[in-house]
């Protein structure tokens, strides 16, 4: 056997895999309503879904209102928010965080497709949810990591910079294992060729970018110690930096802290978690410093107490709240 041939063939095959085993973007299922593709999207990793939604924005005209977030906001449809005339698109991608929304918006801005009003969900601070973004793909992702690390070295505690590096390593590892994943490869191929296969019933994503609720809202049993074990995952300096980046966009950016179940919200408003309280103070300071319109988590008492779970509001309830926000004069 020739070792050189083996190595060359291996490198060649892996490069091929890297090039072709990505999501193939041609048209937008959100635009043409391809039911099969809309159904498959839910089986794709978050990074692919971001790409699909960015591609949709790129080939569509600029929307009036865009909603950014994750599974806590993806269920909000244009009907829920009262913008059924096509002026709304839900850019939320399940599994991502505020950090991903920031990069997402920057990329849309570069394309000149930032929504006129960007509603950005920040997961309730009690959750302390702040993972690193899986999108964009390498090597551009590494540039973002490098910028994070550089910022961290200059401005943030060493421990936080190390956490950023650790999270980047996790993203890279996930990305590597996704590269070698037959099931995912087939799903991506299925997505690319879905125009030629019969449409699948039970479509989850809708043309307005929202996703049908997986579970029907029901009476949620609230644990008194909910979120008590949350660790301080939100890195405050990095959060503030992300907010500063958002403030530079050519859009009205509204950041709202995602609501939690009213029963919990009442309890935690009176006695917030230590990390949540610290984060909220820094968040509001950054809002003021960067002149961003911000809203702390509301208590959605007017809505039904039937929720998906303690941190996932029904689309109609959250939509109504967001519609209210949109009616407000910018409150800074």
């Amino acid at each position, binding site marked *: *056997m*020739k*070792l050189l041939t*083996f190595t060359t063939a291996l490198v060649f*095959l892996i490069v091929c895999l890297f090039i072709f085993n990505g999501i193939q973007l041609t048209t937008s299922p959100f635009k043409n309503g391809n039911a099969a593709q809309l159904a498959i999207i839910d089986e794709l990793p978050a990074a692919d879904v971001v790409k699909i939604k960015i591609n949709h924005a790129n080939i569509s005209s600029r929307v009036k209102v865009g909603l950014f977030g994750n599974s806590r906001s993806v269920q909000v449809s244009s009907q829920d928010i009262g913008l059924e005339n096509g002026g709304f698109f839900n850019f939320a991608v399940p599994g991502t965080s505020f950090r991903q929304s920031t990069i997402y918006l920057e990329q849309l801005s570069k394309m000149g497709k930032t929504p006129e009003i960007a509603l950005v969900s920040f997961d309730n601070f009690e959750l302390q949810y702040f993972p690193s973004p899986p999108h964009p793909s390498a090597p551009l992702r590494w540039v973002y990591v490098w910028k994070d690390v550089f910022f961290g070295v200059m401005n943030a505690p060493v421990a936080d910079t190390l956490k950023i590096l650790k999270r980047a390593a996790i993203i890279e*590892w996930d990305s590597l294992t996704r590269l*070698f*994943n037959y*099931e995912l490869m087939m799903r991506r191929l299925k997505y690319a060729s879905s125009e030629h296969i019969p449409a699948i019933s039970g479509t989850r994503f809708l043309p307005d970018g929202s996703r049908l609720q997986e579970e029907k809202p029901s009476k949620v049993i609230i644990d008194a110690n909910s979120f008590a074990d949350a660790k301080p995952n939100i890195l405050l300096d990095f959060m503030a930096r992300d907010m500063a980046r958002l403030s530079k966009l050519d859009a009205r950016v509204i950041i709202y802290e995602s609501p939690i179940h009213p029963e919990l919200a009442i309890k935690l408003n009176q006695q917030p978690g230590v990390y949540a309280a610290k984060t909220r103070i820094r968040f509001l300071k950054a809002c003021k410093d960067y002149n961003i319109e911000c809203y702390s988590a509301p208590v959605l008492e007017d809505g039904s107490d039937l929720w998906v779970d303690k941190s996932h509001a029904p689309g109609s309830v959250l939509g109504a709240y967001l519609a209210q926000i949109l009616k407000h004069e910018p409150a800074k």
Partner: protein
Amino acid sequence: MIFNSFEFLFLFLPAVLTGFFVFSAARYRIWLLIGASFLFYALSGIEHAIILLLQILWVFVFIRMDSFQGNRVALTFAILFPALSLIYYKYLGFLIASFLPSYAEDGSAGFSLFENIILPAGISFFTFQSVSLAIDRYRGHIREIPKFRELALYISFFPQLVAGPIVRYDQVAEAIHGISAFRIKHQDVIEALSFIIFGLTAKVLIADSLSLYIEPFKGTPGELPALSALYVLFAYSFQIYFDFYGYSLIAIGLGRLFGFHLPDNFLRPYEALNPKEFWRRWHVSLSYWIRDYLYIPLGGRDRHLRNILITFAVCGLWHGADWTFIVWGLYHAALVIGYSQVSRFWDKFPFIVQKAVNFSLVSLGWILFLFNFQEANEFLKSMFGFSVNSVGTPSLESWLFLLLSAGVCFFAHFVRYSRHFSSSVIVSHIYATFLAGLLVAVLLFVDRSQDFIYFRF
């Protein structure tokens, strides 16, 4: 940690190889490998690594004794701890359930100490290595008494720690002594790569795929049409073979990277012409261990029938703590004894008939690895067309994959391909490209890969 995982292939192995060849001074290599082996093992449970360490320390203390050779009492003590740890972890639950069923049924009654015992992976393998070392030392078969680090590496060496082959100290002593001076050659790399890739192929692409095809039928052994039952019988036969064979090939390949020449553990066992020959080809290192440390000490051919029954029952029990495994062992004892009675008649058949009958009989035995007694009984009824409700038949794809597996089993010579290379330049290029393609194919399926079946033993 398992070989067929991204963590092993992309992190552990590259890190150990880099440490071994680049950063570690040659004299520290042995410690690096011991450390890596313990890390490899401890990742599945720190208490398991402690058991392994205790076994090593225990055996070391005894075999270093000047008076150990020929000292039966010292030998008894030397193997006492390894034997007890094996019994505790592997057989205690079985013994309680078999002989003190009231305790097993009523969780509140006593023996709480023995509840929730998690079997350390491969404990049977490393215990047998510890015991063989003590016995060989007792018999005076060991030329040079190993130092602690040498003994530790012999027992804990990660490529063969959890599923063999079960090597004797003398088989690897030279490699251990020469580890500081080991320089890897081009030939070593090629052989190692071939063994590892073929091993991963056998496990990830063949055994794990067969497992998926069998899965839908495993839950209803009494409701299968005869054809489906036959499918399960043969598919599982190939699955268990490729699963264990794959592990052994990977172990041999990994060994080569560190200068170890681990022995072949499978010599194309399904090509055996009769049950006796099968045991000279299947899990060779265990067969020889049992022959040398049990069958011969019991008297060997002097009381052939009794000794065959005992050794095969022990062989069955080694595989698992359940009566099904003991019956499986006795079934093979019956095959071997039966063959010796009818060998004159048997041997007259054409080779292909002998192979087919032997393969079918061996495959029939694997039912006891797959099902408990009741399920096995139902399965046999299904196989002979007496199922109550016949539901589910394998797809055409399943049959084609079974055919492919059979083709690979009987016609692909992984070991020969790995050791003997064509002198033709074109063939070498094609072979190298083929191997690279196989590796990428394996990597695409690694994430759905399962544990090796023999880890349970």
